[in-house]
């Protein structure tokens, strides 16, 4: 693999055991992502995209194979190391935002920032995602797009090496989704942060530096865009 690949998946498998049935969510997938890239993992439902993201984010462990992130062997980490890894290296954005309902927008961001070594100012980040005015609102008082923006701010504030987004627009309308994607793309460009987005929407592929097509637990095809298209220019 290229020496400046930031993320390396080598022959990674993940088998879920559901009673007597084992489901191979990943079946020896291999790919790399370079540092500062905006990568999209795309594929149909059940292809294993989310599993890739979960394993990459240290939220799940692979059954076999190895994963390196910034030269660290994530696949070899124990749960404690994984927690540290998640804490310092990963920012996660979920399809259903998963904000802590008891905390305001600002507090949700602070919640994440407070455990990091070099966090960004929560208020500033919220400003960057355009939510200065709503920072004292509770998640229940925000719209879906706003909640997702809080979630992104929460991920950003941690100043992670890697930002992972699982269908960030899945629960949002077209326009809002577009805004969110723009926010992610801009962040990637501005802060040289590696961003990986999982989506089933192939229309988004042009905006990424790298597109990994996943199918049946394997990287079916990896594309590299020399010139990614800004989100605003993409229609779907």
């Amino acid at each position, binding site marked *: 693999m290229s020496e400046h690949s930031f993320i390396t998946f080598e022959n990674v498998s993940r088998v879920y055991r559901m009673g007597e049935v084992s489901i191979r969510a990943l079946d020896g997938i291999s790919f790399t992502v370079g540092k500062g890239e905006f990568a999209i993992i795309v594929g149909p439902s059940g292809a294993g995209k989310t599993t890739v993201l979960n394993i990459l*984010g240290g939220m799940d*462990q692979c059954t076999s194979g190895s994963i390196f992130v910034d030269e660290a062997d994530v696949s070899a980490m124990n749960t404690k190391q994984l927690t540290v890894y998640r*804490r310092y290296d990963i920012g996660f954005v979920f399809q259903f935002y*998963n904000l802590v309902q*008891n905390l305001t927008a600002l507090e949700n961001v602070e919640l994440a920032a407070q455990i990091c070594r070099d966090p960004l100012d929560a208020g500033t980040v919220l400003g960057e995602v355009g939510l200065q005015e709503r920072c004292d609102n509770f998640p229940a008082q925000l719209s879906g797009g706003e909640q997702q923006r809080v979630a992104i701010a929460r991920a950003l504030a941690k100043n992670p090496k890697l930002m992972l987004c699982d269908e960030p627009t899945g629960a949002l309308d077209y326009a809002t989704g577009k805004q969110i994607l723009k926010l992610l793309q801009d962040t990637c460009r501005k802060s040289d942060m590696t961003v990986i987005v999982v989506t089933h929407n192939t229309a988004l592929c042009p905006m990424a530096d790298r597109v990994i097509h996943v199918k049946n637990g394997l990287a079916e095809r990896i594309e590299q865009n020399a010139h990614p298209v800004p989100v605003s220019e993409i229609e779907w």
Partner: protein
Amino acid sequence: MTKKPLRIHTDARREIRRSGRRWFSLMLLSALAVAFLAGLRCTAPDMKHTADLYYKEQNLMDLRMQSTLGLTQDDLAAVRGYSGVRQAEGVKQLDCITESVTVSVFSLPDQIDRLDVTGGRLPEKDGECVTEQKLMDRYGWTIGSQITLDPGEDNADDLKEKKYTIVGTVRSPLFLSAARGSSTIGTGSVTAFVFLPEDEFTTDYYTAVDMTLDGTQGMEAYTGAYDDFTENFRDGMKSFADGLVQQRHDSLYNDAAQKLADARKEYEDGKADSDSRLADAKQKLEDSRKELDDGWKAYNDAVAKDEIGKGRKKLASSRAEYESGLKQYESGLSTYKSGLAQYSSGLTSYNDGLSQYNAAAASLQAQEAALGAAFEAAVQGLDSTSAAYSAAAAPYTQQKEMLDVAEEQLVPQKEKLDASKATLDQTKAQLNAAKAKLAKTKQQLDSAKAELESGEKKLDAAQKELDENKQKLTDGEQDYKDGLQKYETSKQDADTKLSDAQKKLDDAQDELDVMDEGKCYLLGRDSNAGCVGYGQDADRMSNLARVFPIIFFLVAALSSLTAVTRMVSENRSEIGVLKAIGYGKRQIAVKYIGYAFSASLTGGILGAAVGCSLIPYVIANAWLIMYSLPSVVYEEQPFTVIAAIAAAVLSTTVTAAVACWSELHETPAELMRPRAPEPGKRVLLERITPVWSRLTFIRKVTVRNLFHYRQRFWMTVIGIAGCTALLVTAFGLHDSIFDIMTLQYDEITTYDVMAGLKDNVTAAETAKIRDLTDGSGLVENACFSYEAVSDTSSDKGAVDGAYLFVVDDEDNFGKIVSLRHRVGGQKVTLQENGAVITEKLASLLRLKKGDSITITLPDDSRVQVPVTDITENYIYHYVYMTKAYYASIAGEAPADNVLLLQLKNDTQEDSDTLSRQLMATDGVSSYTRVDEYRQRLQGSLNSINYAVIIIIVAAAALAFVVQFNLTNINITERRRELATLKVLGFQNGETASYIFRETVVLTIIGMVIGLYGGYLLHAWLITTVEINIAMFGRSVKPLSYVFAILMTFVFTAVVSLISYFSVRKVDMVESLKTVE
């Protein structure tokens, strides 16, 4: 820039605020559990602490030295000097009768066992006393009333006065309980105490010496340390005490021996004196005998000589002479008298003849004169010779002749007359001579008579003298006889007196020889009925507190476990997020652990505060009905309180940690996904087609759901079962305690009155009593019986003070006392080869039918008796046997000493009437109305009931909270399901019933298990709270089960109603929107 709080903590805090109801119910569960656990557990120590403070305040003795020989001033000084004795004080005690009851009169304590004045003041001068309120109430006395104390004949002079003025009421630490001990006078049981200043007692010895010890001031009463310390001290002091008694014995022995010697001397002196006096008397008697004998001899001699007889004989002959003289005289006299009469008649006839003669002479002379005259007259003219003359003279001459013849004729007459006159005169002379002779004879006779009379008189005098002598002698004889008798009796008297005295001396000697060695008792507080009873009752509370609250606690813990588990699983995805963000397990767990911790700690502290103040207060004060102590004083019991709080906090927090940990163990990815629902399974019921096919769809769903959520199923069932069990137990305790009163007094021992009979009551007296009771119209049944108090034992234990009843007429007895088996209720009959004992006695001695029980008879002999059967009984212990059997073990049949009466109407009025009648009858010594016992016992049972009420309230509260919690969880857990149902078009009611149908089924299952559990728990618990003299009911009344069921259902209903509003509030859109 101010440091912002960690947002993860902000979240935790907000969680508490947001889910206030859950937090509150968790808090409440902890509060209840801790309140109950800590409260009940603190009760016994608080009770003991209260007593301890009171003991210290009143300076209760640690040890009491009591000697059968009494203790002297010197003994007291010796005890004071004994190392380790802090204070010692002598106590004088005397039982007296006042009004109709026995009171114990004590000397007023100075330092030890100080009295607690509850009214008035302590005695300050002579003639004053203090007593207890109970006695004042009994007789309606007030401070200032006078009380008469009668110590009985034997000790009549032991008190200075007879009457004392009550100046105050007191409590004594020696008398905590109502028991005042027993006495040898009056009815035998002491009713109250009275305290007098010590110098009111005239006795010179102390009944007991009370002491406090060095080193016990710092110890709590009823602790092992205190018990061990005093026990050790007592053991150490034993030989010293024995020494004192030995001394006392020796001095008493010497005194007695001296007295005996004096008495013996006195006896000897007395004997000598009496002997000499008797000897004198005897001498005198002998003298007088001799004198008498002499007298008799003289008398007899005199009688033998018979001078009087002779005199009399002479006298008689003289008298005969005199008599014949007299007769002669009298015949002479009569001859004289007849002569005289003859003479007189002669004289008369002479005189007649004379006068006749004279008259005839006169008439002749007259006739001659007349004839002469007439002749003269006739011749006067005529010559005397003339023929005329002659013629005339012829008649005259004739007549003259005739006259001369007549005159001639008169001459012999005259001669005759003269001759008779001469004879007469001669006779007269003769007569006069005879008269003179007679007169002389008379004179002679008279003098002879006089002589005779004087002789008579002399003889009479002699006779009289002799007779008098005889009389004198006879009198003397009588006197002698009397004297002899007197002598004999006085000799006899003296002999008896002397032999009595000798016997007394011998007895005294015997007594001295076998003189009581004297026994010294060192009695600690563990021999004081009040102290021990109170301690035991406190222990009983502590028994109650040992296990019962733990079950309570477990139910509460289970419920909070469910709540916490639920909360954690509800927050599953949030945990996932936090994990994803990079929070460590510990940081995440803080929220849940903190949540549980804060709820349980707050609840724990709150519960401890309320429980530890309220529960001991209620229970301990309830015991004050039975014990005279001040109101409860709380003891700091950090250990109990902290342990209870810690238990609550730990159980809740650890549950949270465990629940949390299992969630945290999963990867964030798994956590983010909703937990895979448990795969639906067919339940067993589905296989039973006939049942299953009949269920409506919604019922089928209910059945599936029930078995689907296993954990919730068990949680709910166990929770409800626990609560129902607690309720059943609590109600059952109440039943058990209160049933025994009715069972005992209305079904088993149904007599209303027990009248005591005097010893040696005669058959006539009993017949009279019988007539009285039969005739009073108030008595339904009456039965004479023999009752005695017996100490019983077996090799497994001992029980003192059981009542031994000897039954004569079993049929009649059976009307009044019902002997039967508790289980099954069959009648128990008395056998001729053993005794029937009561159930509690059997269980305390661990005896069963066929075993042997050892009982003491009134003469203190111990007898082993086979147990032929065991009978139902609740209060006190009884041993029943037939008269024949008793006679066979005791050697003789007992005389009836009690009369059991069943009244037609057991009213105070009837009872009083009967009491007056009976007490006025010979042979009746006492009269007791059973209702009085009953009331007293009721008081003591009421105290236990307070604890039971607390349990009922707590169990109810717990049941409510548990159900509330479970239903609440059920609803929140199934929000989405409910929302979906609503979306499908279910009405609120239908939606709610979807949940509640399950709740009802679970409640019923839990309840059934709970009813059985309660039955078991009750059966076990009842034995731990039981008091020794009573057997609490062993069964729970059906009504209590009903109450428990109803309460559980009511709670379910109330909880369901509250939950119904929660169900209504489920917003279907909100619920379906997010994956939670």
